C-alpha cells in the first residue's frame, strides 16, 4: 500500500534549520567593531532614517515610493488595484529580468477551498515542501523560508525491559518506565529528519502548513488588518501593508506563518514569474508570509503545487461547497480530524486515514 520506492530523499537538501543564523551575526559583530572604530557611527545614525526608502536603483526606487503610499489592497478601487499591479509587474520584470505577471483574480463565486491530507499515505519525502518553495518564490537561503513543514512522529515503542524502571519517585507514586516515550501526534514532532530513505521504520509523517482557519486567530490580532480572509476561505496578507509586528506569528497555533527576517534571497533564474498579488509575488524584508493554497493556480482552476507533486496521492484539494469534489468525498467517507480542534479555529485543512 505504501509506495516506499519514491521516498529517496538523498537528492533533497533540506537544510532548513531556520534558527541557524550564525553567519550573519558573526559578521555583524565584526562589522560593528570595525565600523565603530572608524568613527562612522554618527554618520550612520544620520543616514539611518533615509536608508529605508532610499535606493540606488531609480526604477526600483520609483516603484518603492508608489508602493509606500498605496492603500491596503482590500480597500483599493479597481483603478488603484490595476495601477498597483502594473507598477509591480514593471518592477519585477526589470528586477528579475523576465516577463512577470501579477494576477489580481478575486475569489470565485460559490467556491470555498478545502484540503485533506491522508496521513496514512504520506511518506515524508518533502517533495511538497520543495515544490511549494519553487512555486511560491520563497527566500531560498538566509533566511530560508518554507511554508510546509513535515513532522516525523513516533508510532510508539513500548519496551518490556522498561516495565519496572519507573520514575524514581521519592513519594512512592508509581510511574511506568515507558511513560516518557511519546507516541502518535504529540508536541514532540521532529521536522529536521534526514534519513537515507523514507519512510522510516516505526514512524509516520504529519505535514503542516497554513490551515486556512475559518476563525483565524492571526487575522484577529493584526493591528492593521493587513491579513484577512478572502471569500473563498483563503487567509491572505497584503505584503505591502504589513508592519512586521509578528502578532500573527505569535497567535498562530499551527506555526504556519513565516517572517522575512532579512531581504529575501530569490535567485533570478529560480523566480516563478506567474504570480498573484496576494499570493506568491516576491516579498520584501520585514513582512510575514504563509501558504495561500497557491491562489495563483487554484483561482484559475488548477491544483496547488503540493497536490500536484505528491508521489503517493496523499494530498486532496477542492471546493468544499461542491458535493462532488474530492475533498468533500473524503469528508464524507473517511475518518477525518483537524489539528488542535479544541482551539475552535475551524481549519479547512483536514487530516484523514483510509
Amino acid at each position, binding site marked *: 500500500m505504501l509506495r516506499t520506492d519514491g521516498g529517496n530523499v538523498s537528492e533533497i537538501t533540506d537544510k532548513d534549520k*531556520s*534558527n541557524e*543564523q550564525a553567519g*550573519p*551575526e558573526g559578521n*555583524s*559583530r565584526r*562589522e*560593528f567593531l570595525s565600523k*565603530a572604530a572608524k568613527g562612522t*557611527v*554618527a554618520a*550612520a*545614525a544620520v543616514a*539611518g532614517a533615509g*536608508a*529605508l*526608502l532610499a535606493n540606488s536603483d531609480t526604477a526600483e526606487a520609483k516603484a518603492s515610493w508608489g508602493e*509606500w503610499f498605496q492603500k*491596503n489592497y482590500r480597500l483599493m478601487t479597481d483603478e488603484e488595484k490595476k495601477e498597483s499591479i502594473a507598477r509591480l509587474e514593471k518592477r519585477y520584470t526589470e528586477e528579475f529580468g523576465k516577463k512577470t505577471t501579477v494576477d489580481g483574480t478575486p475569489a470565485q463565486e460559490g467556491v470555498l477551498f478545502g484540503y485533506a491530507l491522508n496521513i496514512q499515505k504520506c511518506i515524508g519525502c518533502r517533495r511538497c515542501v520543495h515544490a511549494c518553495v519553487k512555486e511560491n518564490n520563497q527566500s531560498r537561503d538566509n*533566511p530560508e523560508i518554507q511554508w510546509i*513543514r513535515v*513532522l516525523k512522529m513516533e508510532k510508539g515503542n513500548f519496551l518490556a525491559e522498561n516495565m519496572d524502571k519507573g520514575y524514581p519517585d521519592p513519594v512512592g507514586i508509581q510511574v511506568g518506565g515507558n511513560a516518557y516515550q511519546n507516541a502518535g501526534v*504529540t*508536541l*514532540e*514532532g521532529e*521536522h529536521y529528519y534526514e534519513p537515507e530513505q523514507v519512510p522510516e521504520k516505526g514512524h509516520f509523517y504529519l505535514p*503542516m502548513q497554513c490551515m486556512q482557519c475559518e476563525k483565524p*486567530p492571526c487575522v*484577529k*490580532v*493584526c*493591528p*492593521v*488588518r*493587513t491579513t484577512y480572509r478572502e471569500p473563498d476561505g483563503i487567509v491572505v496578507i497584503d505584503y505591502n*501593508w*504589513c*508592519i*512586521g*509586528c*509578528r*502578532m500573527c*506569528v*505569535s*497567535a*498562530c*497555533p499551527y*506555526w504556519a506563518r*513565516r*517572517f*522575512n*527576517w*532579512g*531581504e529575501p534571497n530569490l535567485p533570478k533564474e529560480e523566480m516563478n514569474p506567474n504570480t498573484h498579488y496576494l499570493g506568491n509575488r516576491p516579498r520584501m*524584508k*520585514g*513582512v510575514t508570509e504563509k501558504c495561500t493554497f497557491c491562489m495563483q493556480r487554484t483561482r484559475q482552476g488548477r491544483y496547488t503545487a503540493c497536490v500536484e507533486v505528491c508521489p503517493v496521492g496523499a494530498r486532496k484539494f477542492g471546493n468544499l461547497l461542491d458535493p462532488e469534489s474530492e475533498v468533500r468525498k473524503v469528508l464524507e467517507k473517511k475518518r477525518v480530524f483537524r489539528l488542535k480542534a479544541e*482551539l475552535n479555529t475551524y481549519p479547512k485543512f483536514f487530516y484523514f486515514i483510509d
Partner: protein
Amino acid sequence: MKPVIRFALDSFLYLVRGSARYYAWLMFLGFLMLLMFYGAFEQFTKGMIVTNYNDQVSWGLYEAQFIFLVGVAAAAVTVVFPSYVYHHKKLKEIVVLGEMLAIAAVSMVMIFIMFHMGRPDRFWHLIPVIGIFNWPNSLLTWDVIVLNGYLGLNAICGFYYLYKRYTGQEVNKLFYMPLVYISIVWALSIHTVTAFLINTMPSRPMWFHSMMPIKFISTAFAAGPAMIILAFLAIRKYTKLKIADEAIETLAQIVTWCLGIAIFLGISEVVTELYPATEHSFSLQYLIMGKHGLSGLVLWYWSSVLFLLAGFFMLLCPPLRKNHKFWLPLACVLTFAGIWIDKGMGLVVPAFIPSPVGEFSEYTPSAIEIINTLGGWATGLFIFTLLAKVSIGVLLGELKYSEDEGWSPSGEWEPIVHSNEEVYK
C-alpha cells in the same frame, strides 16, 4: 515675552547648566545612544536578521523591555495615588517626579516598539483615518491607545503643574484633578492591556492564563516604585531637593506588599502548571529546570527567585527597610533586577519554547540587540534626567518666572546647580 516661552527658555538654560558629574552622566548616556543609532541603522537597513530572532523564537529582548517598561510607566501611580487619594503630604510635594518617570518610561516603550517592528517605515498604517486601525479586534490597537493616552495624560498633568509652580500660580483644580484621577485608572489600564495582548493567545500556553494581568500589575508596582526609590535616593544625594523619609517609607511599603503578592502569584502559577505537568507546562519546565538538554534560562530564573526572596525579606524587616544608606537601596536593586528577569526574558522567551509544533530551540540576543537595548534604556534615562532636573529646579524655586522686564536669556548666567560637595544632609 510670554511666560510659556520664558518657561521653555529658562528650562533650557537650567538644563545646560550643571556640575561635571551631571555632564559626565549625560555624556555616558549619550555614548550609549550613539551606539544605538548605529544598531538602529544596521537593523533598519538589513532587517531583523541582525537580531537573533528566528522562526521559532520570534519575540525576544526588545519585547521583554517593552513589557517590563510598560510596568515601570504604570508604577507612577504608586506616587500619584497616595498623594491625591490619601493626601500623603510628603509624596504630594514631589508627585511630578513620578509623572516625569512615566513620560520617560513610555518613551522607552515607544523606542522598543520601533525596534520590535519589522517595518517601522510603515508605522503610519497604524494611524486611524490615514491607515487602518483594527480596533476593537486587535489588542495591539488597544495598547496603542492606552499607551499614547497615558503619555498624554502624564505630559499634560506634569507640565501643567510645573508651569503653574513656575509662574507662582495655584493649579486650577477643576482642570487638574479630573486628569489626575483619570490617570490613576489609566495607569492600571496600560498594564492590563499589555497583559491581555499576550495572554489571549492559546497558541502560547505559558501566557494563556487569567492570572497574567494581576501578576503584571503586582510586579509592576514592586519594580516601579523600587526604581522610583532609587531615583529619589539619588536625587536626595546629588541635588538640593530634600525628599522626605516619609515619602520613601511609603513607597518602600508599597514595594513590600506588591512584591509579596507577586511572589505568591508566582508560586500559584508554578504549582498549577507543574503538578499536572501537561504539555502546556513545557515552557515553564524549560524555564525552571531546562528541558531536552536546553537550559539557557534556568540560571536566570533561579537568580530572579533568589533576588526577589532576598529583597522581600529585607523589606519585611523594618530596621533594614528604613536603612536608606545600604539595605533599602540593595533591596530595591534586587527587586528591580528580579522582576526585570521575571517579566522580561523569563516571560517572553520561554513562551516560544517549545514552538507550537513542539520544537525546542534556544535564543540568545545578538550584539546588535544588546546595544539597541542598552541605548533604549540610556535614552529613557537621558529623558528622565532632563525632565527630573527641570522639575527639581521648579520645585526648589530656582526656576521661577519673574515680572522683570529686563529678562534676557543670557542675563543671569550663574551656576545654579549644586556642586558635588553640596550633597543632602
